[in-house]
């Protein structure tokens, strides 16, 4: 996997989160939901962090995620990626919903929103947070309306921690009829990024345990299972 060494151009606040603006020599093809592994060149961090793409413009990229307070413009970073499996926005989706359950950053979902808007889909965000950097075309509904998504959306892209998955699964349960395809980016530390299969990012699926760093971090909600097999 290619590693790029790159300096931070600037820090940008987007949707209440500090993001890194970087100019890359080459912008790899990055699918929504894929991630980059990052280390700082000065060895200030003991563990690699995970950054998600928020926006790509020309050869510059805006990354969000595990940024650090001592990262400033000019700080050299080592970047590896893109890695993992991202979102699969259905090409014919007309009504796309987004949510983070207000527990995670919204910014990893912005590439999904932008792609959906480019496809001519309507995009709705379910949140109670005040957000100031959303495209005007995105409709905002209160998070309490999340269950109604089952009745009108073709596709729901979500970000969730493992702890909040059962709540999302309950809200998306339907007894009969069609339901939207729901994909979830699992918000979990991915420290070894599959190099040693450390298991810190393990996710239980209906087909057994999987690693978010390798098999995700985006999974179909229907493929995820409650953690009944875990020990300790």
């Amino acid at each position, binding site marked *: 996997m290619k590693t790029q060494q790159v300096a931070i151009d600037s820090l940008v606040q987007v949707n209440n989160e500090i993001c890194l603006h970087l100019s890359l020599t080459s912008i790899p093809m990055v699918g929504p939901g894929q991630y980059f592994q990052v*280390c700082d060149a000065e060895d200030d961090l*003991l*563990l690699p962090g995970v950054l998600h793409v928020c926006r790509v413009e020309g050869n510059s990229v805006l990354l969000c995620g595990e940024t650090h307070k001592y990262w400033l413009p000019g700080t050299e970073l080592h970047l590896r990626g893109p890695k993992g499996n991202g979102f699969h926005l259905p090409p014919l989706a007309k009504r796309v919903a987004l949510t983070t359950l207000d527990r995670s950053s919204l910014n990893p979902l912005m590439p999904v929103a932008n792609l959906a808007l480019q496809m001519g889909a309507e995009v709705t965000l379910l949140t109670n947070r005040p957000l100031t950097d959303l495209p005007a075309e995105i409709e905002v509904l209160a998070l309490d309306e999340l269950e109604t998504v089952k009745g009108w959306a073709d596709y729901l892209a979500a970000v969730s921690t493992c702890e909040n998955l059962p709540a999302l699964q309950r809200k998306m349960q339907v007894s009969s009829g069609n339901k939207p395809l729901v994909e979830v980016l699992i918000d979990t530390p991915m420290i*070894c990024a599959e*190099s*040693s*299969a450390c*298991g810190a990012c393990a996710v239980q699926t209906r087909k057994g*345990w999987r690693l978010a760093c390798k098999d995700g971090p985006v999974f179909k909600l229907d493929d995820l299972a409650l953690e009944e097999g875990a020990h300790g």
Partner: protein
Amino acid sequence: MDEWSSELGINSPWMNAAGFGGFLPQNDVSVSKPMGAFVTNPISAQPRSPARDRAVKPYAGGFLLHTGYPSAGLKRVLQEYAPKWRRLPLPVWVHLLAEEGRELQLMLRTLEGVENVEAIELGLPPGLDEKEQANLIASARGELPLFICLSLGDLRPTVLEKLPGLGASGLVISAPRGIMMKGRKAIHGRLYGPALHPQLLSALRDLRGYSLPVLAGCGIFSVEQGEAALDCGAAAVQVDGWCWKF
């Protein structure tokens, strides 16, 4: 290279710690030293699921990590990796997790027939008393050299003095256990990081003259720290979280 390295059967005193290299060596680890052996992730006899309360919690100078050492089980690991281990240019040390002696003996007999597996590391489960530890170690006696992992902070003289008689070939000082709080919930795990380095050196100094080779298996986050551990008497050093830097 000191007297121990040749006894350990390694060409370099540098290796990875169990749990930080996967099941095959990585090409792009940050450690600039040639590796003397490759240590596998911990392997149990049966498939082992991740811990329910797995966690990564950084703190100043280190981090707590709790994964539960998930494992596909020895049979599946060998199916996938034994053919690849055979072709590696460095020896493989298999790290085993076992709760009881019979299970451990079966794993050892299987591994004795696997080409290029040159040593066994045994991680002791938490909560065993000294007698239970001794019984488990004694049951691991076999054809392959046996290295016993004891946590920094858990190096009791009463245990150490028994190891040679129980068939151990060496001691690995592994990462200590600790607790951090998440709100009011206690998170248990192993502690890693350069903050352990001074304690590691102190333990190595205390173990000078010990009858078995001692491997420094925690608190190494730079070449300088590794060399300091070797200077303080370590026969070899095992690198943990530093493996993941790039």
